């Protein structure tokens, strides 16, 4: 009898210890299940924006107009659309088309007037990347618009981050020194800021002169936010509540909204959106509040590719990796009462 009791106690201890494994779960498993979103069998790379009343996005098999089952501009077996940019005033779309056989990657302009046919490239140059906001680059510099206007010449792009019409570039100049640039609407509004080898994974403009950069602190396994201005990267401003998953998207998705005369930044973390009051850029040690309700309810467990503003204040469109588009409405008086609906 005593032996049986000992065995039962041992089993109970092991069971309790195993139950402690729940702490390791990324989020409540049943929370993730109950908030899982309908998969659309389309893998989105980026949300491009609107033209007229239509939303456009780039998927892994071409550029789509939302609601259409076939791509507007399709990949072929030999040519892949790597990036795309929509001109929201004309409806024309720039694409970076990679030729698998020749390995050439060139920019093409597909116009609405020409029914989005892929014509000749805008020039003979090869390019490495095209941003949603129309900036593109190669090993010779950074360019903008179908006319390939030079924005920053003679630099080698290390990586870039973009939000709305803003783009952050970390480059090496001709003397191999790290420099940071911010480009808006085809112009470098912050130039030649001394940089470093640090890789930032999030970028959110607060104004034309102040930005937030996010980087990973490997020594503490946390993600921190920093202010970036023409004076450079400042001290740590805040720490995110959890990690940033960007398995498919190239950077953390974020957007800014206003509520009760305050400005907030929302950034997609692993299973929450962190809400950060960024009204007072002189404040130190600002708080970070993870949000799983309101607009975050439906999209907190799916990967967000990027977020763009709409013509309506505090209303945004988010592209998601496998659940297409969501409209985020932050106009409720309480942030917790904000909403998101699948388009």
């Amino acid at each position, binding site marked *: 009898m005593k032996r049986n009791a000992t065995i039962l106690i041992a089993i109970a201890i092991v069971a309790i210890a195993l*139950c402690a494994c729940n702490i390791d779960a990324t*989020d409540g498993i049943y929370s993730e299940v*109950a908030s899982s979103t309908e998969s659309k069998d389309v893998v989105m790379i980026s949300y491009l924006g609107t033209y007229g009343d239509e939303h456009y996005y780039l998927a892994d098999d071409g550029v789509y107009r939302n609601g259409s089952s076939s791509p507007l501009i399709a990949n072929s077996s030999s040519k892949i659309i790597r990036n795309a940019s929509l001109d929201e005033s004309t409806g024309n779309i720039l694409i970076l088309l990679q030729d698998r056989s020749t390995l050439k990657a060139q920019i093409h302009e597909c116009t609405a007037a020409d029914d989005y046919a892929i014509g000749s490239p805008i020039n003979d140059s090869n390019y490495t990347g095209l941003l949603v906001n129309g900036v593109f680059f190669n090993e010779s510099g950074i360019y903008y618009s179908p006319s390939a206007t030079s924005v920053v010449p003679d630099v080698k792009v290390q990586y870039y981050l973009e939000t709305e019409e803003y783009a952050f570039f970390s480059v090496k100049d001709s003397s191999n020194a790290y420099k940071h640039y911010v480009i808006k609407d085809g112009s470098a509004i912050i130039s030649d800021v001394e940089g470093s080898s640090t890789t930032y994974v999030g970028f959110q403009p607060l104004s034309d002169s102040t930005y937030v950069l996010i980087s990973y602190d490997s020594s503490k396994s946390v993600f921190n936010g920093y202010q970036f201005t023409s004076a450079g990267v400042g001290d740590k401003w805040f720490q995110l509540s959890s990690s940033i998953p960007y398995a498919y998207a190239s950077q953390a998705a974020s957007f800014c909204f206003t509520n009760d005369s305050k400005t907030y930044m929302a950034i997609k973390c692993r299973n929450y959106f962190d809400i950060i009051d960024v009204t007072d850029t002189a404040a130190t040690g600002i708080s970070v509040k993870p949000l799983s309700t309101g607009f975050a309810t439906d999209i907190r467990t799916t990967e967000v590719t990027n977020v763009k503003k709409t013509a309506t204040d505090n209303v945004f469109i988010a592209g998601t990796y496998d659940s297409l588009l969501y409209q985020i409405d932050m106009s409720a008086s309480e942030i917790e009462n904000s909403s998101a609906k699948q388009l």
Partner: protein
Amino acid sequence: MKSSKKFIIALVVLVLLAAAPAVAKSTYYFKGDQVFSIRAGVDFPGFISFYNDPDRGTVTFWDTHLRLGGVASIAYQGYINERLALGGELGYVFNYSRSNKIMTTVPLTAKLTFVPVQTGRFDLAASLNLGGAFIRYDEGRFFSPYASVTITPTIFFNENWGLGLETGIMATMEFYTRNSNKHDASAFCGLLPVTLALSYRH
């Protein structure tokens, strides 16, 4: 009354009804008889109850965002008297969520079966399983307490082999302490299996 509660009450009533013939005097089994069974079938999402989060409350059936799943298990039991069999069961349960990610549950349990009706050709059994289950979904995994209540009418074709239809409820619990930032994510999950059970007895 929420539908999940109605279902649980209906299940309890069914089990009680099944137990009613226990007054029957004749028994077929003897202490020491053994039963090996394999079951396979489907499972329907029953409910997920976020008991620490009134805003989310309890979601039922397809509102759980789980799809129709599958369940299979093997069990071995020995009769400890004419009406009670005790043993163990190892199972595998899977369900896809709306986002087409798979949730798997691997329960390892002790199984107590009460057989109030046993004619030799027909058994009506009610089983209680208690144990733990390894649950995995996306990048999350944990070990959960597990309990199930099932009823199984079984027809035996001969002295050894029988085929039954088993249904009931399987429940797991995900719990976080008050100090955890996931306290609100604590939840019960109930799945409703409907399976065919092939039994071998001797």
